[in-house]
Structure formats: structure tokens, C-alpha cells
């Protein structure tokens, strides 16, 4: 990890720290190395991507955030907004040092408006806190990702986070009806509102969602809620081959059944996770598995849909269809899926967690390509993920015996080839984790140059001094 950078940005001086203390309060400005170290990395490899901020500020109001951003513009200091730091692409890492703005103290639910079925929250609110609060009132925030327990709403917005429920419920963006944004020049603006429809001009709110904190700092959000689905049931389906497993996905969807999740696991993922968990499912004979979840408010309907989906699987070559209808069994089968990454960490903690996305119908073509890459670059590539939306965690896992030097070389070469293949199959390099720092060098290789130019033009128009989370997604010509 590097602590200094030679950039065009100006350093954070003692006078600037003092000014930040005046804007917020002395205890909400951190400069001690051991205190700010925690803000130097996210869930990506700290050694490889981490970078120390010069100062960490914990604002408590939108006005404070705006004042900090104005100061940064005036002094040409980079700003990195941060939620929970649970990102997987380095989006919240202060690559050029500067001021890190953590929204952790802006974590309150401001309003639950049941008539309009929305919640108004501060961006630092833990997503799980919101989910639990509204669930106790029979409501549901459906856009949340798998890291629900730790992540915060602001981070979800920045990454347009998605997760296991996207087949039915979509991703975060669908549930953001409005937001209060501090722009990169320090202005405060409300985009959207408590509105289900809004075509009054450009849809800037949607532009900000998924922009990885490069177009401003969302400070508040209006979140659309739906009724809580009280009934839930799952199928765990064993197939001989990945092809058979994937082929059944469009069959299920085209019959009008809309599962909440359709998760795919290849043989390597299944065996590793089952062994790690000491799980006795007859996984030896399965070349692939699907985990299909259905939910709704009518238990009888869910049961009928469950049987219908299961029978479709049987008609399309499933070896065995297991049903899980109570909490214990549902947890048991989801554990297999959830523990894949953990299980591989035991095998080898050094990995590159990927989230390529391809059209659903192309998933089977991806599997043999992964086998070839695995052989060519001597890495294990378990493939699992959200089959229902084509979003695959084809994760590169370092062979424990491989030297770090070889791994670094092979990782980059293997990713480059993986992303090229993904593109050829009509896919994109990230479905839910974002580009951030981690995939910046690869994005420019696969993206249409026209699209890149449009994005850069937007960035320049919004952030003329390029101080808002600079160096993420793409670089600007200096």
C-alpha cells in the first residue's frame, strides 16, 4: 500500500484540517494514522489496492458535506465518499489521498411514509437496519445485496448494488425514487421525489445510481417499499451438467413463474462448499445445481409454483429435486451457496472475486471457457452466481503452491482473456460489484470508445476540477 502520490492535487495542510474541524466538529475529523487506516481499503485486497487518506471527516448534516466539497474545490483536494467500505471493486478507496468523507454518522431513518410506501433515510443508514425496521411493519426493501448485514444505503446507491433476489425484484436502482445529492461543486439538489413517474427532464437520479461516487455524494434517499412476502420456499435441483441446469432457466421464466432467485453452482463450487460445511447432500453425482427460491404473500400459490418449477426441472433432466419449505431446510441449502467463497478461502485466501454478466442463454458457453482458462493459467475458477440474471461469480483462486509473482502475472492475463470472452458472448465485465479501481484498466479495453467519451464528458461537466472520487471507473486526460 502506498501512502503518498505524486498528483496534481494539493496536500491537506494543517490549516485545511482546522477548517474541516470548524465545518464539522473537532471529534469528527480524524488524522491519527491508526484511526484512518481503517478507511484506506474496502473488501478488495488492501495490499494491492489500499491507499491512505490524508484526513477522514465524519459529517453529520448535508450542509457540512456541501461545505467540505466546496472547500475541496477551492483547494483542489480530492474527495472520496465512503459508506460501509464493503465494496468489492475499490470504489471507496482514496487513491489520491485527500479527504475521505464517511457518511457513517448520517445513519438515521428520517421518515416512514406508509401512504406513499416510501422510506426517507440518510445515506449512511445500514441497509439491514432499514430492512428489519420496515419488515416489522409488514414492508419490504427488495433491492438489497448479499452483504445486507454490513452495507449502507449510500454504498448501495453508488454501486447500484444487486444480489440474490434480482430475478424478481431487480437491483437497488429500481427502489430509489429520489435522492438528495451534494454535487461535485458543492451544490445541494433533490433529484426525483416521492413519485412513481417522473419524466421532467433528464433522469439524473438514475445517472447518479451506479456512478460509484464520481458524480457527487448522495446524502439522503427516498426508498420505495413493497409488501413483505410472508411465504417462501426453495428448490435445490441437481443436474448432470451445467448445460442442463442453465437450459431450464429460460423454460421456468417463460412459463410465467418468477422466482426470487435462481442461483447456479458448478461442480467445483458444490464440492468445495459441501466439504467445507460437512454437508451430506449427494453432491458427488451433481455436475451442477440450481437453487430456486419463490416468495409471495399467498402460501398456497407459492406451493403450487414450487411444484410447477420443480416439475419443469424434472422434465428437463434434473437428477433430483429437493424441496425446502421451513426455515431449517431453507437455511441448510442456502448455506451451500453462501459458503462457496468462504470455503475457497480455506483452500487459498488469494482470489479475484469476479461478477461478469452475460445473457442468460450464453452461460453454458462460458463454462467450458472457464475450464480452458483454468488449465492455461493454473488457477481454479469455481463458477457460481445468479443464473436468473446471467451474473456469474467466476472467481479466480490462486493455487496455494503458485508464487505470488506468477499469480499476479496470471491473474491479469487470465482476467483480460475472461473479459474478452465475456464481451464476445454479449456480456459485460461487472454486473453488480462495479469497476472502481480494480477493473479500470480492463474497462477501457472492452468498452465502446463512443460510450467512454460520453461518460467522460458527463464527468467533466459535473465535476470540472475532477475532485469527486477521481481515478474510479476511468481516467480523464490530464
Amino acid at each position, binding site marked *: 500500500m502506498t501512502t503518498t502520490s505524486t498528483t496534481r492535487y494539493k496536500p491537506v495542510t494543517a490549516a485545511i484540517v482546522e477548517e474541516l474541524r470548524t465545518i464539522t466538529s473537532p471529534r469528527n475529523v480524524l488524522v491519527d494514522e491508526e484511526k484512518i487506516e481503517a478507511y484506506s481499503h474496502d473488501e478488495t485486497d488492501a495490499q494491492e489496492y489500499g491507499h491512505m487518506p490524508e484526513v477522514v471527516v465524519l459529517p453529520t448534516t448535508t450542509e457540512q458535506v456541501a461545505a467540505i466539497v466546496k472547500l475541496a474545490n477551492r483547494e483542489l483536494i480530492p474527495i472520496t465518499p465512503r459508506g460501509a467500505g464493503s465494496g468489492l471493486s475499490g470504489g471507496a478507496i482514496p487513491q489520491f489521498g485527500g479527504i475521505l468523507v464517511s457518511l457513517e454518522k448520517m445513519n438515521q431513518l428520517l421518515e416512514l411514509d406508509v401512504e406513499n410506501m416510501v422510506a426517507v433515510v440518510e445515506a449512511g443508514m445500514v441497509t439491514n437496519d432499514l430492512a428489519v425496521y420496515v419488515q416489522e411493519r409488514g414492508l419490504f426493501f427488495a433491492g438489497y445485496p448479499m452483504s445486507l448485514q454490513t452495507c449502507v444505503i449510500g454504498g448501495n446507491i453508488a454501486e447500484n448494488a444487486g444480489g440474490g433476489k434480482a430475478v424478481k425484484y431487480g437491483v437497488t436502482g429500481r427502489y430509489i425514487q429520489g435522492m438528495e445529492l451534494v454535487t461535485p461543486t458543492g451544490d445541494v439538489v433533490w433529484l426525483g421525489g416521492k413519485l412513481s413517474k417522473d419524466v421532467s427532464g433528464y433522469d439524473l437520479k438514475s445517472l447518479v445510481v451506479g456512478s460509484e461516487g464520481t458524480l457527487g455524494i448522495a446524502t439522503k434517499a427516498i426508498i420505495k417499499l413493497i409488501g413483505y412476502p410472508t411465504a417462501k420456499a426453495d*428448490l*435445490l435441483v441437481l443436474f448432470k451438467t451445467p448445460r442442463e441446469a442453465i437450459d431450464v432457466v429460460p423454460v421456468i421464466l417463460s412459463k410465467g413463474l418468477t422466482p426470487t432467485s435462481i442461483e447456479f453452482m458448478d461442480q467445483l463450487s458444490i464440492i468445495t462448499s459441501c466439504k467445507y460445511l460437512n*454437508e*451430506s*447432500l449427494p453432491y458427488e453425482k451433481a455436475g451442477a445445481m440450481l437453487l430456486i427460491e419463490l416468495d409471495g404473500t399467498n402460501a398456497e400459490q407459492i406451493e403450487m409454483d414450487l*411444484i410447477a418449477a*420443480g*416439475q419443469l*426441472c*424434472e422434465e428437463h433432466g434434473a437428477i*433430483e*429435486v*429437493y*424441496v*425446502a*419449505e*421451513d*426455515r*431449517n*431446510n431453507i437455511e*441448510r*441449502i442456502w448455506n451451500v451457496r453462501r459458503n462457496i467463497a468462504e470455503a475457497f478461502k480455506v483452500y487459498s485466501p488469494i482470489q479475484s472475486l469476479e461478477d461478469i454478466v452475460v445473457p442468460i442463454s450464453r452461460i453454458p458457453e462460458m463454462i467450458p471457457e472457464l475450464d480452458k482458462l483454468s488449465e492455461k493459467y493454473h488457477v481454479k475458477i469455481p463458477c457460481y452466481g445468479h443464473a436468473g440474471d446471467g451474473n456469474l461469480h467466476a472467481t479466480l483462486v490462486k493455487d496455494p503452491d503458485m508464487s505470488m509473482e506468477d499469480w499476479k502475472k496470471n491473474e491479469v492475463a487470465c482476467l483480460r482473456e475472461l473479459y474478452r470472452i465475456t464481451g464476445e458472448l454479449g456480456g459485460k465485465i461487472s454486473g453488480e460489484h462495479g469497476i472502481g479501481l480494480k477493473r479500470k484498466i480492463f474497462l477501457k479495453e472492452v468498452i465502446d470508445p463512443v460510450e467512454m467519451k460520453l461518460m467522460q464528458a458527463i464527468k467533466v461537466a459535473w465535476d470540472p476540477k475532477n475532485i469527486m472520487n477521481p481515478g474510479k471507473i476511468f481516467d480523464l486526460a490530464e
Partner: protein
Amino acid sequence: MKIIVPIKQVPETSNVKMDPETGTVIRAGVETVVNPLDLYALETALRLKEQHGGTVTALSMGPPQAVKALKEAVAMGCDDAVLVSDRKFGGSDTWATSYTLAQAVKKIGDYDLIIAGERATDGDTAQVGPGIASWLDIPVATYVARIETVKDKHIVLERLVEDGYQILSLPLPCLMTVVKEIAAPRLPTLGGKIRARELTIPVFSTENMELEPAALGLKGSPTKVVKIDTPKVTRGGKVVRAGDDEAVVSAVDELMSFLEAKGIV
């Protein structure tokens, strides 16, 4: 081989709340599941059936909703199921429950083996299984961790005991309660679930069973719950502080004598 597996429907325990006034479990809105420890009994029975042929019958005493637990047992692979249900059975303790279930076993008729879970996760008594054996006057083996052989009308099994294993040979019919080590339970299958949906589960009640009225329900239960109390946690931690190197030495001594006094070291 004809096997009967008594199972119990229990509240799902991962988020159970207690009523602070009465000290009882708040059951409203709580999901019910098959007692997790009964799943090992079901698995054991299904494996024996796969090896030796025969049938497995799941048996449960409870309110009409307990049929859900029985359907899950059928979905796992049981051939049939019997629900023992009657308002007059309400309030049964382990004595009355095991009596009623033993009468249900007699009504089912022929059997070679009864396999029960170690205990239920709600009552935690581990008495009903052996109680049934007692009423039926058949041999019983508790905490069975492995089955060695079943032949010549005998079953050879390993019991888990305090300091190892005990190997027993029991004549059939007999009853055993099993521990987790015996076999990891399977999941219900779609085929099993569809069969369970279509299956009509007979209900045994005071109408169609031979029962001694005085032995039923609350009035047939010698156990009387007088009071339910939540034990107060009186453990007070001991904090040993050491500010500098010198203090550490005396702090370690203090800690050691504390641990010795408690018999920990």
C-alpha cells in the same frame, strides 16, 4: 421390516421469544418445524428400509396442524403417517403422551422397530421415547449412534455412553432413540412432496382408539407445572487490572489463585 417413527412438531427455535409474564414460549406467529432431532430418527428408519425393505410410518401426537410435520416426513420418504389428535389429549405430560402414543402403536399393529429422536428441542425431556417402550413392554436403547447389523430378529447397535460406546444386541421388536452421529438427514424431495400432498393421513382420536380416559391429557398427567421461573444470572465477573510491568506479576498471581479457588486450574 416395519418401522414406526414418532415425531414432534416444535416451534422453530432460532428466533423464539419468551413471554416475560408467564415464562412460556410465545407461539403465535412462530413457524413450526419437525423437531430437528427427529430428522435423524427418520433418516435412520429410511436407510434401514433401503437396506432391508419394508415400510416406515411416521406418527405424531398434536393439534391438527401437526399434519404439516407428518407431510414433511412423507416427503422425505416415509410410506405413510398417522396423526394422533384430540382435544382430550391437550395438556399431556410425558407420561400421558407416551401412554397415548403407545396405544396408537398398538392400533397400527405389527411393527419390528420404533425409532425416536434423542429428545424434542422444546420440552427437552428425552422421556417420551423410552416411555413408549415402557408402555409397550419392549426393550429400549437410548443414544444410539450406529447400527451394526439387523438379522435373525435381532438388532446390534452402538450406544453413545459417557466414556465410550456400548454395543447391545436387542431382540425385535424394540425401541431406540438416536443421536446426531447416526446419519445426516436427507432433504424432502419433490416426488415425496407431491405424494404427501395427495396422501390422506388418518387421525387417531378418543373416538377410534382404546384408551383409559383417566390416563389422558392434563388429568392423566402426574407432572404439574407449579411455576415457571427464569433463573437469574448471578455471575459477577472479576476484573484484574495491571497498569505497569510490576503490577502484571501480582495480577497474574491474583488471577491464578482465583482460577485455583474455582477449581479451573
